[in-house]
């Protein structure tokens, strides 16, 4: 600086900064800078202006001082869960880093698809009650922002600090909307605070509060809801009513009966649906009476069959109980009404009506006048709604029967809903037998409802079917859906048994060219994914040694 300020007396070092800027903007030719007090001196050139500006700039930078800070936000609430083991922490960082890397173009190789393992990792970590590492919270929230299916698990894992963080970044606002129990809420033991939040809170906070109170004390939750029920907006009433679905029980009936007379049609329909899921309710009894007046055993012939007389009108009482009078286009009025009555009627009445027959026997009875498909479809929906495993079993029929000839329904979506009602072990066995009988082409949806990891028989059945498909010479990507499911759902213990399939087989006669190599690649990916899952699980088990030998390379 000494070189620039040699002639201090002549340079305009005392000129205010603003004047320097103005003069520089307009140019010294137009707006010369005057040195000396009150701009009385001779005009100076651009060099003098720059000298002065440099001095100003360095002086100002050297004299920078901290400002006084903005008020700090409330610190994040403490999270009492234990921290992740170090190996699991590294694994999570790796999974999340792979997610943000751009997707590979073209065919998948033999390496596991790490992104697909994030849901499983989150589920395992969540089940073991670990706390999310603070510095990985942004990456977790970014992952949840991109994939809605990850949101519940991420928010559960991210815990109170994740929610606190999301409140500071508009990009993560979804977390405040979708957050489960962690939303800002007072302890449910404090009735005064609960009431205040209920009356003043945001909608999401109120939904969370209602769910929390209901988990503790269902009666208190209903009372809370009743205090403001008549003044709520229709769409809010619908959401609150819907929240009764979890933990629905007999004492909810009186509240639901009131809601049957609601101003909003959607609220009425939801109330009717919830009541019909309570087989002991008055509505269920009314529906049972209506349904049994339409469907009866017919003993006129040699064998017993089912006679159906669909209702002739949809009266006001039926409409009040949630029966929709106008059918969707293409459907007859009477069959539409009948299906709604049967769907809402408790399934237990049919046993009495048909002389103590079991669900299986009733489903097997012939149905007169072609009403069979309509009646069985309604029974399927009733079994799903009332979660009745006997009826579900009967309507599913034997797994070896081709879907088109079975009782109940041929729709895979409805079959998977029925399957979901069966106990997990039975569900897995049924699907295993189905795969063994019919192969994999229709199994995808059914496999989706089986619990993870797949039980032994189911896993073996799927692997056998894949092996058969390979021997048949087709390309593996015809089965990429099932392959992907198998990577995520097979029991990792199966990895050893699968090792033999990773070799490239001799190509059978008539096989698609090169298919063997692609199959070998697909099975290698399957095995490496299973080993990775086993390693992930081991890392999350605190007492186990750091990782296990399952991730090791082939023997040297």
């Amino acid at each position: 600086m000494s070189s620039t300020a040699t002639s201090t007396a002549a340079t305009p070092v005392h000129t205010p900064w603003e004047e320097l800027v103005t003069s520089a903007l307009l140019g010294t030719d137009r707006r010369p800078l005057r040195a000396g007090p009150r701009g009385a001196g001779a005009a100076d050139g651009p060099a003098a202006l720059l000298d002065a500006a440099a001095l100003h700039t360095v002086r100002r930078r050297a004299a920078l001082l901290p400002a006084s800070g903005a008020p700090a936000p409330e610190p994040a609430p403490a999270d009492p869960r234990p921290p992740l083991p170090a190996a699991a922490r590294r694994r999570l960082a790796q999974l999340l880093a792979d997610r943000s890397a751009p997707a590979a173009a073209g065919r998948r190789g033999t390496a596991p698809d790490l992104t697909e393992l994030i849901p499983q990792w989150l589920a395992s970590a969540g089940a073991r009650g670990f706390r999310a590492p603070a510095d990985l919270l942004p990456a977790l929230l970014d992952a949840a922002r991109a994939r809605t299916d990850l949101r519940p698990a991420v928010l559960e894992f991210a815990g109170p600090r994740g929610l606190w963080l999301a409140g500071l970044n508009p990009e993560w606002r979804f977390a405040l909307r979708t957050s489960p129990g962690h939303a800002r809420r007072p302890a449910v033991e404090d009735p005064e605070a609960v009431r205040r939040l209920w009356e003043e809170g945001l909608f999401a906070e109120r939904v969370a509060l209602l769910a929390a109170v209901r988990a503790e004390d269902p009666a208190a939750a209903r009372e809370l809801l009743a205090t403001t029920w008549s003044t709520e907006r229709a769409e809010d009433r619908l959401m609150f009513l819907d929240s009764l679905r979890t933990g629905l029980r007999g004492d909810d009936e009186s509240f639901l009966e009131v809601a049957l007379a609601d101003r909003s049609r959607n609220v009425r329909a939801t109330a009717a649906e919830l009541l019909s899921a309570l087989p002991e309710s008055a509505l269920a009894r009314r529906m049972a009476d209506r349904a049994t007046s339409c469907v009866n055993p017919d003993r006129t012939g040699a064998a017993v069959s089912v006679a159906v007389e669909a209702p002739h009108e949809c009266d006001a009482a039926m409409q009040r109980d949630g029966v929709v009078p106008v059918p969707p286009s293409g459907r007859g009025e009477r069959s539409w009404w009948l299906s709604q009555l049967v769907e809402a009627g408790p399934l237990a009445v049919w046993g009495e009506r048909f002389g103590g027959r079991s669900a299986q026997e009733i489903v097997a009875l012939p149905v007169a006048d072609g009403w069979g498909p309509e009646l069985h479809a309604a029974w399927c929906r009733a079994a799903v709604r009332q979660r009745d495993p006997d009826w579900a079993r009967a309507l599913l029929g034997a797994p070896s029967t081709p879907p088109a000839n079975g009782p109940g329904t041929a729709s895979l979506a409805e079959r998977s809903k029925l399957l979901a009602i069966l106990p997990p072990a039975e569900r897995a066995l049924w699907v295993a037998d189905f795969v063994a009988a019919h192969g994999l082409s229709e199994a995808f949806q059914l496999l989706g409802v089986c619990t993870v990891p797949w039980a032994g028989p189911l896993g073996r059945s799927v692997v056998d079917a894949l092996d058969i498909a390979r021997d048949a010479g087709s390309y593996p990507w015809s089965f990429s859906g099932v392959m992907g499911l198998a990577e995520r759902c097979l029991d990792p213990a199966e990895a050893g048994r699968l090792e033999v399939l990773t070799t490239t087989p001799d190509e059978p006669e008539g096989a698609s060219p090169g298919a063997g190599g692609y199959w070998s690649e697909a099975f290698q990916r399957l095995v490496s994914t299973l080993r990775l899952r086993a390693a992930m699980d081991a890392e999350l088990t605190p007492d186990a040694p750091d990782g296990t030998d399952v991730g090791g390379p082939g023997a040297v």
Partner: protein
Amino acid sequence: MLLSHGGESSPATGPVARWTVDQVLAMAPDEASREAGSRLGSGRSWSAAGPGGGTALWGLCRGSGSTPYRTAIDMDGPAYTCSCPSRKFPCKHALGLLLLWASDDAALRPGEARAPDWAEEWWEDRRRRAAAPAGGRPPAGPADPEAARKRADRRAARITGGAQELEQRLDDLLRGGLAAAGRPGYGQWEETAARMVDAQAPGLAGRVRELGSIPASGPGWPTRLLEECALLHLLDSAWLGLDRLPGPLAATVRTRVGLTLPAEGPAVRDRWLVLAQYDTPDGRVVARRIWLHGSRSGRTALLLSFGAAGRSPGLSLPVGVTIDAEVTPYPGGGRLRAELGERFGTPVAATAPPAGGTTADAAAAYGRALLDDPWLDSWPATLSEVVPVPSGDGGGWQLVGATDGSALPVASSAVSRPGLWRLVALSGGRPVTVFGECGHRGFDPLAAWCPEAADDVGAGTTVALV
């Protein structure tokens, strides 16, 4: 092994600090290698792999051919060798092997498999070269001092010509008014920068190129443009009056203009904590900045290295480890930039952040540093007990001292980085220790530490923010 180590080498003082996955991925020369390397980061891709002695790894990677690729790594460096034909450096196999190690894959735990001879030979060779006495190096200084001096004189004369031309252009600009530079289509800067490159003054060229981006930088640009023009003028006139400047300031001016002076002076041996490492594009090359902090000397040092496009800069140090090494400072610029010399032993995980100060200390340190180098944009500082707080105006952030409530704004370039959110998450609204660059644009946080072991990252663990 006994042969090469002799009594010289110091054994590792702690466990070899494992790199994180992020650190490994940061080594990748480009996006494609990063992805290819990630796919090789599982035990399945390796028919055999294992740790060597100390800081070494080896592996046999299945490729498309019949023979597997032989990959070996010496983490002390790091250095890689691979039999694959790739010209990327490190290649995807080396990255995959590092990833395997970073994720603590079972394949790389000490086991039965002995390291193969080819790997042992390579490590042995490296150790022998590292242990070779300095006499093996070419003698310092050019062969012909007279010719070198002439070359230096010729270059100085060219730079002087460039500086005079630049002064003339600034003069013209100020006469006509900066407003002209704000109009679209004002294309003078690129041409002027090219002239400075011709004059062999890359420092001047870089500053001129930055001037060109200021008019598009949003409200208040005339002020910033005048500031930078004035500092450029200051540098010009300093160069033109170089013989009248005191020695250290003259060295600073030479460095700023773009002359590379050799690192000199006594080397400082210390246990250096790697605070941060990040790359910035610098024209056609990538500049890598690595910040070190010496636990004994209390010095902060900046290692600069450059890589051509497609190659990652040679030097890479994992953030959060401590290395025992000698560091030689370069003259000028407050003697912040340094050269990494000999390293001793293996890196170990660091246990504590550098001692920090208040926000006022950081601002004052920057002010003092300007005395030596008025062209400094920022100066390294560690803040202790600060809380990141939204400043309430349009998404800005501050670092607020927990005890005195005084605040430094977070530099706007840092606000848009994901690292800021890592800092906020780590803090959770409570005080943390933050290292960064403090300057007239604000504070740019580069690393952070949690105060207590209460959190899962543990006390003393460096969390990288870049």
